[in-house]
């Protein structure tokens, strides 16, 4: 029984919520709505402090000006016995705020203690405390507080604070417990435990500070609840009715039929004050929520109007739209000499747009994919390879944007489609029919509440509305059979399948419409080696059988060399080497490629030291000047920090060519001693420059 925030906390706590400074959340309070919230809250807090000093009258002072409408003498009018409503409001603010914030503090302290202890201790302590919290969560608060308040007759503010606190701590405790549970598994907490820190120290030094944002959110919602509860209790006459609070004013108004007499000035201000303060607190909470759950800040897929306009304005003359569907020729085996280009990517640039900043994620990437070819794209995380995968399928989301470039797709009938010029509807039809994508994590890419069969079926239905239900059902079974899933699993939900099965199902989804090109974004990364092997073999088998082309993206270079025809290596958003897989394996040209190759062992080659590459992948926001690999490059020289190397074409001994973006090849010829094999050179060379 979690609610939205708790679920989100549970989901997000594993990742971004605790990243960065512990007080980073304060920065999220800059949005306009949050500022309005802070202003509203501050307004009332200020009046709570100065209220009694600026009140023009004694709030209980009876006068002859009874039931007066608002005037200069009485801004908010008077009551049936001539009391000044404005003065009552000013005095009342103090009690209402005191009860609201007082209850908030006590209830939050209770929830912090229960939540942290339960989440940290786990086991029986957790079971008991969680049960207690769940029971309190289900008990209806108002009737319970009514009974408690009635039994503590005419209780003052303190009694009311206690009553509200003990009935409203449960929600915060639940959220904090979930948060603690996930924090507990983090490295820094594990480390503290391993070094023998006392649990109390760990809880208060390592866990508590990371939950400040969640605690603040829970505190503010408790204050809102307390305000409303206090108002309700006072309105029912269950508090000390001689002590002015917003609720008490409403109590007197109601008992003297203010609403029946249309004395709106009497009962409108207190309720409006409660609503405004509640709004203020909730808006601040919204800001905190957006920090806790960063996804709330991202634009959803509904916000594409601007993108669409941009694309429309760029529609190119090349586009003949998508040609009529033609029967595909039997798959001809791909050869290195093939010129049958199916996908032509030219000078593609993808940027991430931030607050006035532009971060290039993919820079000037060009390549061609030929019919039946397997193009492997390799790169470390942050090299832009996944961004490229999404851009090719035009599935990138704001803040990512394709700033320039061209993506041309050659249809089976020879006509050319400009993918970037497709309208949303044309794109909808084009994608999956011609070009599909297999996502990295099948766990997250399959809808958890929909059966596997239905998730394949709906893709077919969307593109082939004329196809009958039974025909589609037969096709679904056929597709599952292709990837090696038995037909009785059609009705299985994703969670009922193993990791390997889910990935197979994903591939079946990708194959649903028999596309010409499939982009595979790390399709085997999350799987163990044996399953990985099965999946890769299945992909290659299907490729030979169905004749599609593959763009296979991974950081696993050994896998890539084995299955690709051609390899492109990405670094810092650029392609730094592009070569046939065999040539690449034997004579990698770029120092980065060599570094990658020397970071894994060969099965049958000579024994050698595994060196890898020192340093870390570059930050795309601050790429090094010149060649972005230069700080890590063992053979870098002065010019490398000055000139951005373009791709140089290098003739190979095999008769083919390779391309590498390295100034070593500026003269067009391989530099002696560099290109004589990947497995001998770099290790023995004297590093020219120590990597930072």
């Amino acid at each position, binding site marked *: 029984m979690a609610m939205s925030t708790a679920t989100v906390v549970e989901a997000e706590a594993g990742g971004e919520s605790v990243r960065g400074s512990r007080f980073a959340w304060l920065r999220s309070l800059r949005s306009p709505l949050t500022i309005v919230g802070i202003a509203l809250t501050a307004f009332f807090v200020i009046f709570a402090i100065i209220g009694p000093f600026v009140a023009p009258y004694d709030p209980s002072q009876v006068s002859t000006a009874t039931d007066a409408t608002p005037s200069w003498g009485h801004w908010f009018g008077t009551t049936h016995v001539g009391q000044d409503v404005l003065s009552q409001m000013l005095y009342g603010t103090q009690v209402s705020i005191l009860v609201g914030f007082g209850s908030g503090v006590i209830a939050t302290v209770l929830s912090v203690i229960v939540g942290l202890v339960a989440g940290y201790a786990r086991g029986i302590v957790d079971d008991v405390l969680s049960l207690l919290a769940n029971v309190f969560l289900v008990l209806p608060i108002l009737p319970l507080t009514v009974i408690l308040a009635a039994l503590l007759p005419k209780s003052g503010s303190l009694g009311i604070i206690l009553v509200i606190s003990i009935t409203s701590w449960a929600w915060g405790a639940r959220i904090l417990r979930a948060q603690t549970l996930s924090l507990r598994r983090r490295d820094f907490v594990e480390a503290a435990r391993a070094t023998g820190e006392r649990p109390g120290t760990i809880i208060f030094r390592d866990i508590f500070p990371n939950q400040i944002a969640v605690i603040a959110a829970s505190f503010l919602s408790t204050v809102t609840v307390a305000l409303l509860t206090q108002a309700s209790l006072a309105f029912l006459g269950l508090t000390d009715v001689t002590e002015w609070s917003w609720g008490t004013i409403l109590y007197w108004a109601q008992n003297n039929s203010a609403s029946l007499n249309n004395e709106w000035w009497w009962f409108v201000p207190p309720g409006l004050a*409660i609503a405004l303060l509640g709004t203020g607190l909730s808006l601040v909470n919204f800001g905190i929520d957006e920090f806790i759950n960063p996804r709330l800040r991202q634009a959803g*897929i509904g916000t594409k109007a601007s993108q669409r306009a941009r694309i429309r304005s760029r529609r190119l003359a090349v586009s003949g739209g998508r040609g009529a569907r033609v029967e595909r020729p039997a798959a001809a085996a791909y050869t290195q000499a093939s010129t049958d280009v199916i996908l032509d990517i030219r000078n593609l640039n993808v940027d991430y747009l931030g607050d006035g900043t532009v971060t290039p994620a993919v820079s000037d990437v060009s390549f061609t994919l030929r019919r039946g070819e397997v193009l492997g794209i390799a790169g470390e995380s942050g090299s832009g390879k996944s961004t490229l995968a999404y851009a090719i399928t035009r*599935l990138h989301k704001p803040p990512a944007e394709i700033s320039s470039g061209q993506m041309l797709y050659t249809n089976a009938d020879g006509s050319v489609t400009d993918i970037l010029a497709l309208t949303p509807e044309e794109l909808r039809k084009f994608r999956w029919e011609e070009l599909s994508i297999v996502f990295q994590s099948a766990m997250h890419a399959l809808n958890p509440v929909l059966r596997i069969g239905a998730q394949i079926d709906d893709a077919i239905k969307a593109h082939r509305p004329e196809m009958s239900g039974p025909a589609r059902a037969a096709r679904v079974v056929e597709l599952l059979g292709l990837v090696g899933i038995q037909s009785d699993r059609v009705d299985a939900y994703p969670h009922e399948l193993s990791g390997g099965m889910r990935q197979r199902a994903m591939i079946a989804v990708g194959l649903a419409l028999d596309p010409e090109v499939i982009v595979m974004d790390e399709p085997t990364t999350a799987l163990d080696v044996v399953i990985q092997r099965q999946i890769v073999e299945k992909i290659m088998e299907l490729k030979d059988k169905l004749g599609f082309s593959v763009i296979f993206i991974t950081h696993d270079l050994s896998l890539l060399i084995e299955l690709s025809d051609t390899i492109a290596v990405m670094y810092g958003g650029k392609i730094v080497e592009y070569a046939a897989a065999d040539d690449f394996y034997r004579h990698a040209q770029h120092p980065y490629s060599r570094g990658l190759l020397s970071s894994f062992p060969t099965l049958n080659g000579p024994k050698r030291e595994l060196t890898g590459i020192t340093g870390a992948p570059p930050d795309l926001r601050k790429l090094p000047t010149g060649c972005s690999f230069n700080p890590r490059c063992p053979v870098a020289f002065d010019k490398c920090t000055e000139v951005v190397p373009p791709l140089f074409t290098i003739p190979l001994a095999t008769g083919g060519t390779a391309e590498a973006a390295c100034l070593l090849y500026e003269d067009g010829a391989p530099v002696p001693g560099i290109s004589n094999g990947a497995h001998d050179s770099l290790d023995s060379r004297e590093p020219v420059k120590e990597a930072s």
Partner: protein
Amino acid sequence: MRVVLRKAVFYLLTAWAAISINFLIPRITPGDPADNLIQQFHGKLTASAIKALRVLFGQPHESLWQQYLDYWHQVLTGNFGLSFAYFPSKVSTVLVGTLPWTFVLITVCTVIAFVVGTLLGTLAGWKRGTWLDSLVPVTTFFSSIPYFWFALLMVVIFANILRWFPIGSGYSVDETIGWNWGFIGSAAYYAVLPAVTIIVASIGGWLLGMRNMMVTTLSEDYVRLAEAKGLSRRRVMVTYAARNAILPSFAGFAMSIGFVVGGSIVTEIVFNYPGIGVVLFHAAQAADYPLMSAIFLVITFMVLVANLLADIAYAFLDPRTRES
């Protein structure tokens, strides 16, 4: 199966806790509520009524355990004693006469607010970044309004000034209670203002919760894949995004329904609606503990049943909870 068992244990435990809290409260608070009541109605109470009162609110000469057993016996036989605010009616009689009004009102309003709020929240989340974003501050304001204050505004505007709707009763005096159209129509007419108040005040919570979950869900890979597959926007929105985003609304039903019930009870008082809220109000004013504690138990029971239904709905909506 284990899930069902765990839920069953939880609900039984909560019911037990509610009843035990009810037993403990008058016994741990200062003073002797039973004595106060007996004094207050001195001479009017029969011996058996006094005995029942003692069982419910404290028998100084019995062990706490014996008191507890006696108390359970009373509760299980539905004997909550006499009401003082409605003397000499029995508590059970008062409840039977008023509970149906509250039950129908809250059920209908909750269903409408949930359905409409969730639909609007779905749209607002889907169309994030458009003018629908302005729903956020507006609904935040509406969900911060105290129910009873909004009720006061409704009374002034629609009952006093415009005179569109009647208040002060549950149906017109010309009608007889029963399954006849005259009565049902009249009851519906009298329920409009309280219902609108409850719906307006409670819809914001559902709307905001659903919107935020939609926005969160829209960044899931499965939504992106659904879009990539070329599904209609409607199917992506409903079957892929909303279908997953709605789950926390059911999971968080417990807290939300507690607020709605609390707010509705106070709302009834403003409209003088013949439900349990007015009774609770009178009971609180007259320090009528037997009636108050019985109302607390009844409301807790209603909330538990509502939660049970939400749990069942959740199990139907989320295949992952159905097994294991």
